[in-house]
């Protein structure tokens, strides 16, 4: 809790001092109501990862994979739309999913850093997809019984979709890891590089504690143990080495992002911002 507020305090202080000017009428309050923050985190993870996957459209290594990555992007962006709609409803300031996706600044996004990292080569993309999808699957299973009708509805839908994502990306990790020396070296490097971003997925802070009081309870330690089991099984089959859990990169949950998010948003939000209010 203390670290969380301290980080937010720094961000607010910088904005006040004019070092990080933030314009726009729809700036999110620095710390929204916990339920809003929680739904934004869930929604933003999927929106940003979905956007990254969509960057592969037309660039996939083979046609089938181009289609698969685009389909997973579609699932994630669909889940994000539902979650951001719920966040807007919980916030009660009249913002819908489009307002939240297209009219927030980077510091207002709550996605985990791993989702915003550039795609890298196909191996990096697929390793990230596996690591994040495995987490998502377990998270949605935990949220199936959440006493929040909207969230439980998204969970029931998403859990079916993410099962396909886990299997598809997991099979690719095995295929590439247990493949040629070149493919194995590349995916091992991807695992090594991405590992320091996995810790943030399991962080629990004041927001998680507050929504747990509302009955939205996720046992992060149990989730991590199951994730470890699933990831270990796939890495072993892929003849890849699991890195040690060293220092982890974090900050996305409180709006402290890598430099990559701003560039991503400048593309994702460009049409809406060039033509505000346009419909098609």
């Amino acid at each position, binding site marked *: 809790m203390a670290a969380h507020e301290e980080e937010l305090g720094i961000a607010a202080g910088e904005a006040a001092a004019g070092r990080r000017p933030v314009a726009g009428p729809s700036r999110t309050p620095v710390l929204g109501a916990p339920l809003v923050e929680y739904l934004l985190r869930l929604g933003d993870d999927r929106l940003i990862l979905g956007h990254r996957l969509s960057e592969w459209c037309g660039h996939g290594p083979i046609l*089938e994979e181009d289609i698969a990555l685009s389909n997973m992007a579609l699932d994630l962006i*669909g889940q994000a739309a539902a979650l951001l709609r719920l966040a807007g409803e919980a916030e009660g300031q009249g913002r819908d999913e489009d307002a939240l996706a297209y009219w927030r600044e980077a510091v207002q996004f709550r996605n985990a850093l791993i989702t915003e990292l550039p795609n890298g080569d196909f191996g990096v993309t697929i390793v990230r997809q596996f690591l994040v999808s495995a987490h998502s699957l377990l998270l949605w299973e935990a949220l199936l019984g959440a006493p929040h009708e909207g969230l439980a*509805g*998204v969970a029931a*839908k998403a859990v*079916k979709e993410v*099962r396909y994502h886990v*299997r598809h990306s997991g099979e690719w990790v*095995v295929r590439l890891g247990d493949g040629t020396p070149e493919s194995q070296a590349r995916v091992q490097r991807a695992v090594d590089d991405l590992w320091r971003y996995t810790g943030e997925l399991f962080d629990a802070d004041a927001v998680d504690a507050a929504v747990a009081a509302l009955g939205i309870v996720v046992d992060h330690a149990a989730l991590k143990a199951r994730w470890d089991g699933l990831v270990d*099984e796939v890495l072993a089959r892929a003849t890849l080495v699991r890195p040690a859990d060293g220092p982890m990169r974090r900050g996305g949950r409180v709006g402290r992002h890598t430099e990559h998010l701003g560039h991503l948003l400048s593309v994702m939000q460009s049409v809406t911002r060039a033509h505000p209010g346009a419909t098609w």
Partner: protein
Amino acid sequence: MLTVARAWEVLQQVPDPEVPVISVVDLGIVRDVTIAADGAVEVTITPTYSGCPAMFEIEKDVREALLAAGAAQVAVRTVLSPAWTTDWIGPEAREKLRAYGIAPPGRAEPSGLIALARARPPVPCPWCGSTATELRSEFGSTACKAIHVCTSCRQPFDEFKAI
């Protein structure tokens, strides 16, 4: 005035925009139809996939069909729960899919962790009936389909995946 039974008949004629050989009712997308005392019709639909881009089209088609059939007012409501499952596709619709060249879905798997590279029961080819088929990709032309290829008749084909 439109009756609930008549409204279902009308919706039975509204084709799915991506798989026009079956209707939105066949597909299990239409969950409920109610008609208020003043004749206003409310249709509850559920998406097949979270990001299904056909939902707007389906909503429009449902509304237009009911208005054309004499409904005074139509509201279309989207719900996520209970989540759509291919188990809601009836035997008749499955046969229509097969005749159209799309292998119908198997039973949806129970939840829980999934085995990688699990032994999948072979999906019979909708063209020649052979079970000597191979999965090419679990993601196909739309979110709801997988791509297979038949090694007997050499035809690629879509499978409506179980979800």
